[in-house]
């Protein structure tokens, strides 16, 4: 397990208290899990993805990550319609462990862009982890 100062937390994205991150490009938000999440979970063996076209509200479960001994639910940071899922994760779930920021999980079209500003900055997320 990494120490807090060893975690990689890019500051150009936002985070949630359930350890997801979101990055908005144009009208699409990419969603993944933080370095802290993948480190805590350990080797990821399976990713359960939603279907493209599903409409999911902020805070609802959109998928799960499984390690050998645990299951972690994924909570959607921004309400919206799922426009893409990262199918590479079906055959190679370990991509999330290798680079949790390159290995995005889903893309949504947010229904309320304002929700993004309510998410945690990297600094606020680090404070949360420290606390």
């Amino acid at each position, binding site marked *: 397990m990494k120490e807090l100062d060893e975690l990689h937390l890019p500051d150009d994205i936002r985070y949630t208290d359930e350890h997801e991150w979101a990055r908005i490009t144009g009208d699409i938000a990419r969603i993944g899990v933080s370095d802290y999440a993948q480190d805590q979970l350990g080797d990821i063996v*399976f990713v359960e993805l939603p279907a493209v076209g599903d409409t999911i509200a902020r805070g609802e479960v959109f998928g799960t990550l*499984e*390690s*050998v*001994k*645990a*299951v972690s639910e994924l909570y959607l940071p921004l309400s919206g319609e799922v426009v893409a899922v990262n199918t590479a994760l079906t055959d190679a779930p370990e991509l999330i462990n290798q680079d949790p920021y390159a290995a995005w999980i889903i893309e949504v079209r947010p229904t309320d862009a304002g929700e993004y500003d309510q998410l945690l900055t990297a600094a606020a997320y680090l404070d949360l982890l420290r606390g």
Partner: protein
Amino acid sequence: MRYLPHTPEEISEMLAVVGADSLEALFAPVPADCRPTGSWHLPLPLSEWQLDDHLAGLAATMGTGPRTRVLVGAGSYRHHIPETVRTLASRSEFLTAYTPYQPEISQGTLQGIFEYQTLTARLLGMDVVNASMYDGATALAEALLMGLRINRKRTRVAVSRAVHPNYRAVVESYLRPTGFTVEDLEFGPDGRTDVSALSGRDDLAAVALQSPNFFGVIEDLDAANAAIHATGSLAVAAFTEPLAFGLLKNPGVCGADIACGEGQSFGIAPSFGGPGLGMFGCRKEHMRSLPGRLVGETRDLEGRRGYVLTLATREQHIRREKATSNICSNQGLCALTAAMYLASLGGTGLRRLARLNHDKAHYLRQVLVDAGARLPFTGPVFNEFVAEFPHDFAPVRDRLLARGIVAGLELGAFYPELAGRYLFCVTETIEKKDMDAVAAEVRA
């Protein structure tokens, strides 16, 4: 007492280390109002030899014994069990080991169950088979629940009336509190399930047939599964006599999505109905919805092949209320026993034994018909069939019982419309002379 090794001196030493005055003092946290108020009035402890006598006394009051010719199947089958299977299954290391959670010291159990999964998958034509359920009935209930999980938007399932009545009863018990509905599918004069009632339906999550069914009739599974799939449902193929697949097309090749049933025929004594062996398999795409334990192949850190329990995130100890089932202890030793039996039988032996069962049952069926019996169902059969007799068969059956032959199971208690008809089973344990004796009594 030979299972309790402590001497009084040892007890004293240990109490001193613990800091308690007496064994009774160890239970101080238990309040007085939680305790029993009197004796249990159990019999005085028996010595090993008294226990032998006691069980022998119970056995003596049984109306059948190992020498009785039992011409009844109905979900519990008398097959020859090689002494090797009994001896190997009773080896301490298999018998007294726990669930293989520490794989490095449980490779015997793990490889044994992996082999069972593989042989059963090949027999049933399924991609994945689990490490066992309790029995064929609970396996069917879990198969329907699995179908309802996969076809999440639907809340109804259908089960053929030609499925074993006890299995249907268990399905009802499991589904009653859930709000899901079970409906019946009728059987026709050929003894096969009538799937025409499915036509146009789009509200069923899963449909279950049994083949060979309770009447011994081999269902037209290809046609039935096609009809089931046309409604968008999952096709569940149940069975009580898997020896049939040594001869007949297996559920997988006939299009089943889930195959589930009873494996007791494979080296497990009938034992008044338990322990049995719930066999359960499915197609690859449903693997993560499968209930029960799974053993998988892997490598260790030195590259050696080995086996571990895997995909455990489906199970109760991790997923808790979202698990695919609540099952924890299964019928592990029975699964291993079945693998030992199938290993002894071999592929060539399996075909031969299945044919022998088929031929013998057809011989009895023929000589009964020659003696005046009628066959209410026209469909093809494996090693069981239903017959009815021109005169009251009950006294004939009683005479045969007095000669050590149990001739069939009367069906009226399960199917009122089939009162007076008898379900017969013939396995390799029955000789021609026994069958000729039955026919002679019918003729008399």
